[in-house]
């Protein structure tokens, strides 16, 4: 498995509270992604990064922000969590990015429950 860790692995929080999820990689890959996985929807891209301080929105970016201050770390923040953001969140990395025939390596996931 690629060197990707996510923290925390599980979190329960209340509506309206801020939440930050962390993704850390040891592969020195340029591209990093945040997905959410919900039953019946597969994996949906929230935000991605193509370099330090370079990020862009994905398919379901509303209510989420990201930051990447170092190559190895990609943070996902829910400024004010809502129950609709209860999901499993996966971080992924790739070497060449979406413009190439590249593969993505996924982290172990974070299960977030918003009460």
């Amino acid at each position: 498995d690629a060197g990707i860790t996510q923290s925390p692995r599980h979190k329960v929080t209340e509506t309206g509270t801020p939440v930050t999820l962390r993704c850390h990689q040891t592969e020195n890959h340029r591209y990093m992604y945040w997905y959410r996985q919900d039953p019946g929807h597969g994996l949906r891209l929230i935000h991605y990064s193509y370099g330090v301080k370079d990020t862009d929105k994905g398919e379901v970016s509303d209510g989420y922000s990201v930051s990447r201050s170092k190559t190895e770390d990609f943070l996902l923040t829910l400024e004010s969590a809502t129950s609709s953001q209860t999901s499993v969140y996966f971080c992924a990395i790739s070497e060449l990015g979406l413009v190439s025939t590249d593969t993505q390596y996924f982290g172990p996931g974070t299960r977030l429950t918003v009460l």
Partner: protein
Amino acid sequence: GQQVMQIPQYQHVQEGEDFTTYCNSSTTLSNIQWYKQRPGGHPVFLIQLVKSGEVKKQKRLTFQFGEAKKNSSLHITATQTTDVGTYFCAGLGYGNKLVFGAGTILRVKS
């Protein structure tokens, strides 16, 4: 926007039976990737198809990319209990966005 539809949503087979999942896109795809996710695990890359009509095999798994590059299939011959999981296709289409299908959940009864 671009959509990738995957069918069936769920399939329960007897061990030794064959299994097929289909992936259809509303637009032409540059390539298509297949991932497998074991229960409680994370998606793991299986294979990528790029060429029109391409067929690739990995032991009991056969992957096909349609001639029009808008559909793909994954066929498993003689399923085993180790094949249990969710199989996702993901297509790279317009705007270089990778779009995942909803996945097919495979259960194998021994």
